[in-house]
């Protein structure tokens, strides 16, 4: 199709392509090959082809990395960061007499339910935080709180997909995949998008972390605690150096194959991938053993706690820091399983017990992470995001639970480019609906991308006849919370 090549916006030599595909995770070194390319040069009507390659930020980024603390199941905003005294006043009254109640997923609308926790003001900014999070409360001057989040979906799975991929349906690329597609990874030996599985894979499954229509190299690598942190990362050869010898042998034969077939980029890339895989075998275990971490650091995160869930989450938070130190672009932490009897943050009943167990497990490690990042100067270049997929109702489900509420929830960000001590957006007196400065999930994505130096409207991938975006056709950067 020669005539078409002439209309391609740029020509990448086959050697460059080879280097690119062998990059595995995409690397800065390779990006520089295209560094002179004007951004946004991909044409809206460009034909579907390898020209979907996209590399490099659009403008100077504030953040280099993202740590995404996912609060699976939906934290109650009125019990955490959005105090509503009126709930106490009207505790036990019929909500339907107060305001219009939307259909909920469990359709078991109880009475107005006051928060079982007290709120206190913290920091110089005086941000109120409930007693659920005494440790995070000590970091409020670094936190920009958004109280006006909304989601499009009241069901977990749709809302999870939406939060992670910008679409409520299965099959779209996750934001971590988009960031790596846009920016590449800075470390050739570790994947650029890592999910630290703390015990709970969110409803919707691993598809929350997939590459969708982007090439598979952008999907998340899932790390788990234990002897094999990444699938197939441990050599199976019992004898020392045996694997190296085998790989040498394989390499020799592979190279003679190239001699037989002439130039074959794909084969050459596959050969160089073995070297990368080999290096990962040592770089990953090195990461997950905390040999260099001091006792003081471990203690800061809560590694000395009696609560095994807290210890587990603490070690994930330490690992997250270690990953971003090594240039991993996007790290997501899933929640620990604090059961029995408690299913993630999803307290349809027994709110007090459930939220307390969850909060206890994550509060100190998160505060430890923020403090540790700050003391190492890493918070300036790392964006920490804390959010669930939706909020919960201010009225009870049954007598002591709360149902899903996509019409209002609280989330916060801290770190690179974020104005600490800010509160943005407002809900009504019940914390049921947003009444000021609504922020959508698309806006959140646009803002995260903005901080990474990406214009969310420019980062596109042609699929199924459309230039797809993480933010679809929506999204506005929430400028008010940015420095």
């Amino acid at each position, binding site marked *: 199709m020669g005539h078409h090549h002439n209309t391609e916006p740029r020509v990448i030599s086959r050697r460059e392509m080879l280097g690119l595909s062998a990059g595995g995770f995409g690397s800065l070194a390779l990006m520089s090959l295209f560094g002179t390319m004007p951004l946004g040069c991909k044409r*809206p*009507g460009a*034909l579907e082809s390898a020209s979907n390659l996209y590399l490099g930020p659009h403008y100077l980024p504030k953040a280099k990395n993202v740590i995404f603390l996912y609060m699976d199941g939906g934290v109650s905003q009125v019990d955490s960061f959005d105090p509503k005294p009126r709930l106490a006043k009207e505790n036990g009254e019929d909500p339907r007499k107060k305001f219009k109640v939307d259909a909920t997923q469990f359709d078991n609308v109880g009475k107005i339910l006051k928060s079982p926790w007290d709120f206190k003001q913290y920091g110089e900014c005086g941000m109120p935080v409930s007693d659920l999070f005494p440790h995070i409360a000590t970091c409020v001057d670094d936190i920009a709180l958004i109280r006006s989040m909304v989601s499009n979906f009241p069901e977990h799975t749709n809302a999870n997909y939406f939060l992670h991929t910008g679409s409520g349906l*299965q099959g779209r690329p996750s934001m971590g995949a988009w960031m790596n597609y846009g920016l590449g990874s800075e470390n050739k030996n570790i994947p650029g998008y890592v999910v630290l599985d703390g015990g*709970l894979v969110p409803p919707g499954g691993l598809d929350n972390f997939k590459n969708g229509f982007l090439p598979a190299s952008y999907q998340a690598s899932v790390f788990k605690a234990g002897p094999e942190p990444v699938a197939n990362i441990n050599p199976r050869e019992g004898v020392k150096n045996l694997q190296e010898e085998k790989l040498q042998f394989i390499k*020799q*034969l592979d190279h003679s194959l190239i001699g037989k077939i002439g130039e074959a980029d794909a084969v050459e*890339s596959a050969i160089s991938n073995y070297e990368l895989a080999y290096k990962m075998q040592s770089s990953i275990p090195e990461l997950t053993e905390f040999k260099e971490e001091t006792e003081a650091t471990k203690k800061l995160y809560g590694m000395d706690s009696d609560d095994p869930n807290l210890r587990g989450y603490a070690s994930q938070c330490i690992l997250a820091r270690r990953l971003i130190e090594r240039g991993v672009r996007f790290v997501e932490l899933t929640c620990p399983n604090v059961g029995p009897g408690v299913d993630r943050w999803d307290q349809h009943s027994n709110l007090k017990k459930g939220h307390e167990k969850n909060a206890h497990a994550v509060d100190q490690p998160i505060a430890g992470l923020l403090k540790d990042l700050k003391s190492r100067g890493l918070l300036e270049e790392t964006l920490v995001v804390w959010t669930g997929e939706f909020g919960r109702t201010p009225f009870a489900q049954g007598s002591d639970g709360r149902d899903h509420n996509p019409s209002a929830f609280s989330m916060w960000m801290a770190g690179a480019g974020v104005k600490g001590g800010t509160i943005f957006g407002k809900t009504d007196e019940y914390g049921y609906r947003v009444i000021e400065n609504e922020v959508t999930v698309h806006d959140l994505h646009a803002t995260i991308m903005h901080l990474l130096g990406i214009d969310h409207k420019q980062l596109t991938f042609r699929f199924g006849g459309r230039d797809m975006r993480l933010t679809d056709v929506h999204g506005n950067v929430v400028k008010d919370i940015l420095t």
Partner: protein
Amino acid sequence: MLWIRIFEFPSKILTMFFSRIKVLILICVLGGLGISCDRSPQFSEPLPKVVDFNFHVKPILVQNCYLCHGPDPSSRKAELRLDTYEGATAALKEGGHAIVPGKTSKSHMVQRIYNEDPGMVMPPPETNLKLTEREKALLNKWIDQGAEWKDHWSFIKPETKIALSDPKAIDFIIEKKLDEKGLEKVPLANKNSLIRRVSYLLTGLPPNPKEVQEFLSDTSSVAYEKLVDRYLNSPAYGERWARHWMDLVRYAETKGHEFDYAITGAWKYRDYLIRAFNEDVPYDQFLKEHIAGDLLPTTRENKETGVSESRLGTTFYVMGEGTHSPVDVRQDEADRIDNMIDVTTKTFQGLTVSCAKCHDHKFDPITAADYYALYGVMESTRFSPVPADVGKDKKLAAKEIENLNSYMRKLVAGKWDTAKSNYENTDYAQNTAVNTNEKAYTVIGDFRGRDFDGWTSDGFAFGQRSTLGNPIVDMATGKLLGLDEGKASSRAIGMGIFGALRSPNIILDKDFVGVRALGNNSSIRIIIDNFQLIQNPIYGGIDKKVNTGEWNNFVFNVSAWKGRKAYIEILPGVYERHKYNLQEDAFIEAQYAVTYDGEWPSDLEKNFTTQQPQDNWASLEISPSKVTRINNDLKKGKLPPHFPELKSVLDSSQQLAKSLKTESFVNGIYDGYGIDSPVFNRGNYKEPSEEHIPRRFLSVLSLGDSVFKSEGSGRMELAEVMLNEDNPLTSRVMVNRIWHHLFGRGIVETVDNFGLQGKLPSHPELLDYLAVKFQKEGWSVKKLIRAIVTSETFKRSTLKSDALANADPNNIYLAYFPVRRLEAEAIRDGILAVSESLDSTMYGTPVATHLTAFMQGRGRPGKSGPLNGEGRRSIYMEVRRNFLEPMMTTFDRPIPFSTFGSRNVTNVPSQSLILMNDPLVAQQAEIMAGKLMEKGLVGFEEKVQWIYMQAFSRLASSKELKKASDFFEMLRTMEEKEAGNENQEMELWKEYCHSIFNLKEFIYLI
């Protein structure tokens, strides 16, 4: 930034004037010096003699102009459209014309594209779009040559002048192009490479060494053709090509979302595909079975079992994701239908119709109205369990039972003929329809008369009429106990038989739906917006189990869904976690169904609401009141009660009924009642248009304007228009898919997109030749594959010179055969085959997914499947949406959510890690070493050669033998350092085999 600017800013007109002069000068310069004066490398290729609209001009327009001047009026600027001849040559409202054919100097387009003023130039700088000099020159020359407009190439019906039977046709076209491009073709591949290539591409498996030997020693002139036929006729062929198809229809065995519920019987569709490819079912039939297999007047039967195959094809509609308890059930339907439209149009037409959901397509002439015409077709299609074991025999048996029932009525009527006159004056009062208009209820169906009151009886159980007047006979004595009252009964034919009685669509306007029914292990369900995954939370109340021997009022509170479309479904059997189960003793009977507010309408019990047709005594087609009187008289002894002859009739009927029992179901579809959908503004159902779009095909294609007349969905008509001989896409899209699978790249590279944004065909003449041939020669996939793989083009070596590689780096012109990585399935199946542990058993329930520690989350099966998948081929491994096999996805098997005609071929370290460290690969290496030990091969060399023949279908070279022996030596030294190993020899061979699996030659087709 637009055309209109000229006139908005009069001061710029002057600039325009000057730039026009500049344009003219430029044209003169170009004319005088020729194109070589341009330094751009893009200009190195001369402009074509004749500039073709489709191949040269339109790509430029699509990329640069159509966002603002394309088919979508909502984003059109300056009222100018450049996607039609009329639009492009129409008078601009400010005067002048964008394009004046033959007159470049009068064409504003030329002026604007050559303009250097940033405020004037097209496309505007802020779009980041810029035409190259060559593009401008092409547009200019095309206008100069008369600006000939053509339909999009793929919408023009394919034609060919080449004889369809010409065995050299493919090579002729390919080589003509090679000559044009000055590329020299390479020699044919050697026999070892060829057999490996043909075997893998046709069957997905490596050739076994015996086959290799046979082929090598077969010196006949047709040795290769024999080989091709052998693989085409191998059962493994169907397994390979079925999997290709499964990528198109997002094949999965669970519904994903929160709990990953099973799609009952999905694997039967997989088996259907394997059989269809192996039997070479003509593609037109195959397409019809997919689109409307449930509606075909004659069905295709399985040759062995006699079971109807056709209906299984429609299972592909059901393969989508399924939402757990969606709060907005209407949105859920819109999403589901969008996915059905997306998959159907991409798969069969290579068009991305889903892009027109929110607005007219930005690039293709597909309107939002087209999308909603198809939306109606899908909305009128309902879901149902479908018995997977129905053949002609069962249909005959069901018919026979109905005949027997009718015969029994006639027999009784005949015997009582003399009493007939006693009933002529029966009071009809009870039989009069009650006007329910003013009541607080609406009768949705009343089955106490002779018919089903307009409801659909699906399956066999309910038969075609109510039970009214059916003789009830004591089987022991043959005594007639009475005539049956009117009701819809799934026992009318027999117990444990599948059937469903479903109402027409209603709009819910009252608080309650009520059904008077009795039964056992059966269900009544309210289906709102075709939503099937009924359960708590939210939906638990609209699926009621029926387990009562007495007439009971079943009440459904539907007040939450007022205004929604719904239907009532009455069926024997129950859903358990969305799996439909039909027990032997399951039956259900119903008298009437109603919607109402407030209290249950008790007056209905006495008042029938259906008008009955005239009585017909001879067949006991009589009114309910007559039945009552007769039963009274019978009790009083006024009528003769003994009918011993009915005993044998009943006996035959019951025997026949046994044969109708079904335990094998698939989640399938059946045809509902035709619904025309409005257009949803910006894709939002809450903003429907006034106008409803009649169901029809895509307006840009032939017959796209003819409205479907069917009272149902219109899918049969949809299949027919796709197969209309004037349809330009159906055949082209399929032959291109086949070419893609054989060469790794389609003639049209974007195999699922033949629209304006798709790639142009590299060899249009070839594509059309193959499309016409396919269509005219009976739509035989095997014949087409045979024609392609027996061409010299297919048989060429992969070895090429650097010069050739540089001249055609992407191998568009096929001077050599492309090196290809094997697909995920072929890699895994290849390992199993080479280690001799492949179990070639075909068909059946899937092998459970092997669960690793990394595969967690809701819906995780309680038990992991075996590591080696029982040694079965990958196509038989379970596809659980939320627990996809890591090896498959890592090697690029697509995530099943949309159509993927072309897989990505990525290159990531996790692939290397699998081959290096995955326990399955290590296990298979060990097995292979074990098999090697059993072969009784003596020398080292012999063993290595055995392995090479197994793995690479060739012998090792002396250099490779030397390398192997060095490797062993090195291993021995290493092992000696370790403490003595009892089974050392075997261990060493295991390491060697494991290394073999890691060679690139193993996962690439060389």
